[in-house]
């Protein structure tokens, strides 16, 4: 456990506002940095610019009506949030899901995970000053969006999952496109490694930068690739398998140091593991059969009680906590988001680093601000 850095006894601390340019831009994070020369002595994230009150909105609309809200919290992995909410309510109300729907949802969710990681890859490298990989990553991501657009009709905020299945069946073209995409993505990985992973500038800006100690990660509740980069193999898909994840053969990539380079490597490896899951799901998916359990009523009312359901989104452990008083409206709808905890470990990690490294660390953590503010 690293020793906490006490602010040095300097009489003049310069405060830098690493902040939003305009409050209506998306993903507005403001960090107040206290600087001693080029070194950060204190970091204080200021949140709430993107607060829309999703949790409160959950209380005054039915479970079905809350579905479009879920994909607007983490807009980069909206389908994973849809999926998680559908799973939570299905568990709560005891709704049966057809097997085909389970496979469709798993494939789409993993595609969404890859697209989220690809976007992170592109923007992170752009934060570090490399513009070209960003374009390549977006080219690949565009393919995923085309595939998901084909089945769900949307490119970002999907609202694709329903309680008891999905809203639209997939066709053979979707399966072919997905297979072709996986082949294509695998052929692009060597390029990514040549362009970024082996790049000396990239290595110097990420190696031993922003090291998160496993103990520190536990204290702050860091999850997802950031936790796995510290060497802790914690993934809800393995720890508490939901949906049909227990039937797939995949590994959880872990890092050793917990620095920015490890976080990068873990995410790149996770894309490969997602490809493996999708391939297996495509092979085993039942050819026909229902894709939606149509018996779910609009004013669905789960029995009185509470439910906590956790799943793995692209950024880590995400959970829905639902309390029902037996009416069609949830009494309480709380969402545990991973970015909130992942961001706050920065208050510790930033101390003692340089301003230029702060950008690299912030990028490597992969926070989505609307998810934190929600």
């Amino acid at each position, binding site marked *: 456990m690293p020793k906490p850095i006490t602010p040095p006894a300097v009489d003049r601390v310069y405060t830098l506002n690493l902040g939003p340019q305009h409050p209506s831009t998306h993903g507005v994070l403001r960090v107040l940095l206290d600087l001693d020369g080029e070194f950060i002595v204190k970091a204080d994230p200021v949140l709430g610019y993107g607060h829309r009150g999703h949790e409160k909105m959950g209380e005054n609309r039915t479970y079905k009506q809350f579905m479009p809200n879920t994909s607007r919290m983490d807009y980069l992995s909206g389908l994973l949030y849809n999926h998680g909410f559908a799973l939570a309510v299905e568990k709560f109300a005891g709704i049966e899901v057809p097997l085909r729907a389970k496979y469709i949802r798993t494939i789409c969710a993993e595609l969404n995970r890859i697209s989220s990681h690809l976007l992170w890859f592109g923007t992170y490298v752009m934060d570090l000053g490399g513009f070209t990989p960003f374009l390549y990553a977006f080219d690949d991501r565009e393919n995923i969006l085309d595939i998901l657009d084909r089945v769900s*009709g*949307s490119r970002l905020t999907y*609202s694709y999952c329903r309680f008891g299945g999905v809203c639209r069946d997939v066709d053979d073209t979707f399966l072919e496109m997905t297979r072709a995409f996986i082949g294509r993505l695998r052929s692009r990985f060597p390029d990514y490694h*040549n362009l*970024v992973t*082996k790049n000396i500038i990239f290595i110097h800006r990420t190696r031993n930068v922003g090291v998160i100690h496993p103990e520190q990660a536990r204290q702050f509740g860091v999850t997802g690739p950031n936790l796995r980069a510290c060497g802790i193999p914690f993934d809800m898909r393995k720890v508490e398998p939901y949906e049909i994840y227990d039937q797939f053969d995949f590994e959880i990539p872990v890092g050793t140091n917990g620095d920015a380079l490890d976080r990068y490597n873990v995410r790149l490896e996770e894309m490969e593991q997602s490809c493996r899951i999708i391939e297996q799901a495509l092979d085993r998916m039942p050819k026909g059969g229902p894709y939606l359990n149509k018996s779910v009523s*609009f004013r669905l009312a789960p029995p009185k009680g509470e439910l906590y359901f956790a799943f793995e989104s692209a950024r880590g452990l995400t959970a829905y906590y639902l309390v029902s008083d037996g009416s069609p409206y949830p009494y309480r709808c709380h969402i545990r988001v991973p970015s909130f905890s992942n961001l706050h470990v920065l208050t510790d990690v930033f101390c003692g680093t340089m301003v230029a490294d702060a950008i690299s660390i912030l990028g490597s953590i992969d926070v989505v601000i609307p998810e934190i503010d929600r």
Partner: protein
Amino acid sequence: MGYWKEIVEGGWSLVEGMRVTVRRLCRPVVTVQYPRKQLNLSPAYRGHIEFKRFPDTGTHKCIACGACQRACPSHVIKVQGVKAHLNSAKTATHYFIDFSRCSLCGLCVETCPTKTLQYSREYELEGESRLDSIVDLMARLEQRNS
């Protein structure tokens, strides 16, 4: 020695990266110059809702039951209907949506008992004020009919 080794290896890594870029340069263009060339819309594309025209009646089948209005999480839909006489079925006379509030969740299309709603293929939407986002579904259907 490590210093020089790193310079050589680091320099080589930049050359490798440049090679990827140069190879990419010879590949076909992936972007589409939008107004001049357009992509095919996805079969599942969700525009704002509109009435289906049924061939047997030549018009919509909206009975103004208000199921879509109640299902909508954002109060986008306003629908009104009348009964021509006491024992006849209700038919819609007014159907307005405020598309600026719509989140395209599809609940209205799914709850419609007569299946008279569908997604339009409209994607080039622009306007000068918020009022421009209000769509009159009745007028739209008439327009498509004529």
